C-alpha cells in the first residue's frame, strides 16, 4: 500500500513535431500539477480532495482544454463539463453545459455532496452554481485567442467534410488540422489513491472544437470518461463518442473485477483490444498503489508518481 497519482491533459493526434515553445509550457504545467498532487498526498489529504485540487489547477491553466482554455462550440461559445467520483462510496457528481463557472470540477463535487441528484446540466447547473456561491465569471474569461483560431480552422475544414445529410462521420476530429499543435482533443483528469487506500477520479473538459451546442461527451458520464470503485480509479480522454460506446472507465474496473486482471492488464486490454486505434487514452490507479497510463493515440499529455519514488512525465510513447 502507498499513495499514487496520475493526471492527464488529453490524448490525441499530438504532432511529434510540436515546437518546443508549445511543448514546454505544457510539460511545465503537468509537472506543476503533479507536484501539487504529490504534496497534498504527502500531507495526508483524502484522494477525493487531491483529484479536485489537481483538476482545478489544470482547469485554471489555459494550455489545456478545460476551464480557461476550453475549446469553442460551433457558436463560438464555451460549454464545459466535468465529473468526480469517490471510489469507496461510489458517490459521484457531474455537470454539463457550464458557461460561467470558473472551476467546473468543484461544482460537480457540490452536486455530489449538496443535492439528491448526480448530474445537473445547462441552465439548471448554472442556477445551482449561483445558489452555492461558487466563483463565476463572464464567459469571455475562458476563451483564448488560440481557440478562436482553432474554431476558425475547424469551420473551414468542416465546410467541406461534414454535411449532416451525408453518411455519418463520427471521427471528425481526426480530420481537423493538427498544425496548431496540441490539445484539440484535450481533456484533463486526475486519479489518486491515498495512504488510506481511498480512490478517486476526476475529469473536466471543454469538449470538442466546433462541437454542436448542447453536445455532451464522455467526460461527465459515469462509467465512460470517469469511474472509481474500491479497486481502481480511472479517467479517460480522446474521442468521446468511442469512449461512451465502450464504457471505457467502467470496463477497466469491470475487467479487474470480473476477470481478475491486474490494473495494468485491465487497462491495456481496454485500450488495445476494445477501443479502435487513435481513439483513447486513460490514466488509472489501483487500491494497492499501482499506476498506469496507456493510450492508442499518437500521444497523451500525462504525468504520474507513486509513494516509492517512481515518477514520469510524458507526451509521446518514448519516456522523456
Amino acid at each position, binding site marked *: 500500500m502507498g499513495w499514487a497519482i496520475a493526471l492527464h491533459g488529453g490524448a490525441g493526434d499530438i504532432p511529434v513535431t510540436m515546437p518546443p515553445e508549445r511543448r514546454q509550457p505544457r510539460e511545465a504545467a503537468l509537472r506543476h500539477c503533479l507536484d501539487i498532487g504529490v504534496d497534498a498526498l504527502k500531507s495526508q489529504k483524502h484522494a477525493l480532495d487531491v483529484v479536485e485540487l489537481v483538476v482545478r489547477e489544470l482547469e485554471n491553466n489555459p494550455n489545456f482544454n478545460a476551464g480557461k482554455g476550453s475549446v469553442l462550440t460551433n457558436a463560438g461559445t464555451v460549454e464545459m463539463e466535468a465529473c468526480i467520483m469517490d471510489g469507496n462510496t*461510489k458517490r459521484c457528481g457531474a455537470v454539463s453545459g457550464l458557461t460561467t463557472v470558473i472551476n467546473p470540477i468543484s461544482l460537480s463535487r457540490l452536486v455530489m455532496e449538496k443535492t439528491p441528484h448526480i448530474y445537473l446540466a*445547462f441552465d*439548471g447547473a448554472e442556477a445551482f452554481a449561483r445558489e452555492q456561491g461558487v466563483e463565476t465569471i463572464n464567459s469571455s474569461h475562458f476563451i483564448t485567442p488560440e481557440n478562436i483560431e482553432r474554431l476558425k480552422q475547424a469551420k473551414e475544414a468542416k465546410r467541406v467534410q461534414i454535411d449532416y445529410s451525408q453518411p455519418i462521420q463520427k471521427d471528425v476530429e481526426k480530420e481537423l488540422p493538427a498544425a496548431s499543435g496540441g490539445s484539440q482533443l484535450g481533456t484533463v483528469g486526475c486519479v489518486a489513491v491515498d495512504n488510506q487506500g481511498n480512490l478517486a477520479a476526476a475529469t473536466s473538459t471543454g469538449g470538442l472544437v466546433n462541437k454542436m451546442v448542447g453536445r455532451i461527451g464522455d467526460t461527465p*458520464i*459515469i462509467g465512460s470518461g470517469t469511474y472509481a470503485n474500491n479497486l481502481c480509479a480511472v479517467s479517460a480522454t480522446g474521442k468521446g463518442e468511442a469512449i461512451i460506446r465502450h464504457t471505457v472507465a467502467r470496463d477497466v474496473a469491470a475487467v479487474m473485477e470480473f476477470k481478475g486482471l491486474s490494473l495494468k492488464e485491465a487497462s491495456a486490454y481496454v485500450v488495445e483490444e476494445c477501443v479502435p486505434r487513435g481513439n483513447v487514452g486513460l490514466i488509472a490507479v489501483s487500491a494497492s498503489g499501482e499506476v498506469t497510463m496507456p493510450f492508442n493515440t499518437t500521444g497523451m499529455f500525462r504525468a504520474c508518481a507513486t509513494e516509492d519514488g517512481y515518477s514520469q512525465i510524458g507526451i509521446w510513447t518514448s519516456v522523456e
Partner: protein
Amino acid sequence: MGKWAIAVHGGAGVDPNLPVQRQEAAKQLLTRCLNLGISALRSNCPAIDVVELVVRELETDPLFNSGRGSALTENGTVEMEASIMDGPKRRCGAVSGLTTVKNPISLARLVMEKSPHSYLAFSGAEEFARQQGVELVDNEYFITEENVGMLKLAKEANSILFDYRIPNGGFETCSAGAAATDSPLQMNGLPISLYAPETVGCVVVDQEGRCAAATSTGGLMNKRTGRIGDSPLIGAGTYASNLCGVSCTGEGEAIIRATLARDVAAVMEYKGLCLQEAVDFVIKERLDEGQAGLIAVSKNGEVACGFNANGMFRGCATEDGFMEVGIWP
C-alpha cells in the same frame, strides 16, 4: 435464424395502493406495446426499429412517465430525456432536456444516425430537432392534469420536510398523498418527497440475433431544472452489445453509480454468466440502497427481468409463444 424476444417496462417502484383500474390500464398498455413489437418482429423489422417503435407508443400514451404524461420539474414544466443503443456496432444516441419534441426516443436515434455526436441536450438538442424536422408540440401537450396535482403534493411535502441540504428527519409522519408511502423513498441517502418512476423502456433481440435497447423518461417529479438521470446515460439506464440489450428504471442515482445496464453485459462478457444469472447478480450485488429494476434480452432469444423494488410494470414475449405482463413480484 435465431429466435426473437422482446420486453417492455413502465417503471420500477409502484404505489402499493395503486387503484385496480389503473393497474388494469397499465397492463393493457404493456400488452398493446408488446403486440406492436411482436408484429414488427414477425415482419422482420430490425431490433433497433422495434425498440424505437415500441417506446414511441409508450411516449405517446399519457399513462407512464415519458413523452405525454412526463413528470414535472419544480417549475411545472416537462424536461424529457431518452437514449437508444444498437448492439451490433454499439452505436448509440441520447438526448436530455427536451421540452417540445413529441417523441424523444426518435430524436435520440437521429442523434445516433445524423449527428457526429452521441448525446445532445437542452437548447442544442431542441435546435437539432428543428433542423431534422421532427414533430414538435407545445410543452403543454406533455402536461397532464394528474401530474399537475402530483407536483402540487410534492411541493407541499417539500415546503415542510424536504430540503436537500438537510438529511432526513420526521419524513415518516408525512402523508402527502398516494405516492408518499409508508417507507419514505430516499436518494443518495437524502429524502425524495414524491417519486414518480414509471420510466419506459424496451429491449429486443431480432431473428438475426441483433440486440437493441431504448429508454425514455420525464425524470423525477419536482426535479430541479437541469437534472439528468440514468435514462440517457449509456451504460447506466440503457446498454446494448452483441450479447444483450438492457433497459433500467428506478432510482436514477443508484443506477448511475452501479452502471447497471453495462454491468449486466459486463458479467456476461467477462464472467460468462447467462442472461438470467447476470440480471440476478446485478440486482442483488450492484444496487446499494437504491430501488430499481431492469429488463434484458440476450442474442440467443432469452428474456429476463429483475427488480428489488416492490413492483415493476413489465411485459415480455418470446418467439416460442411465451408472453407475460405483470406488476408485482
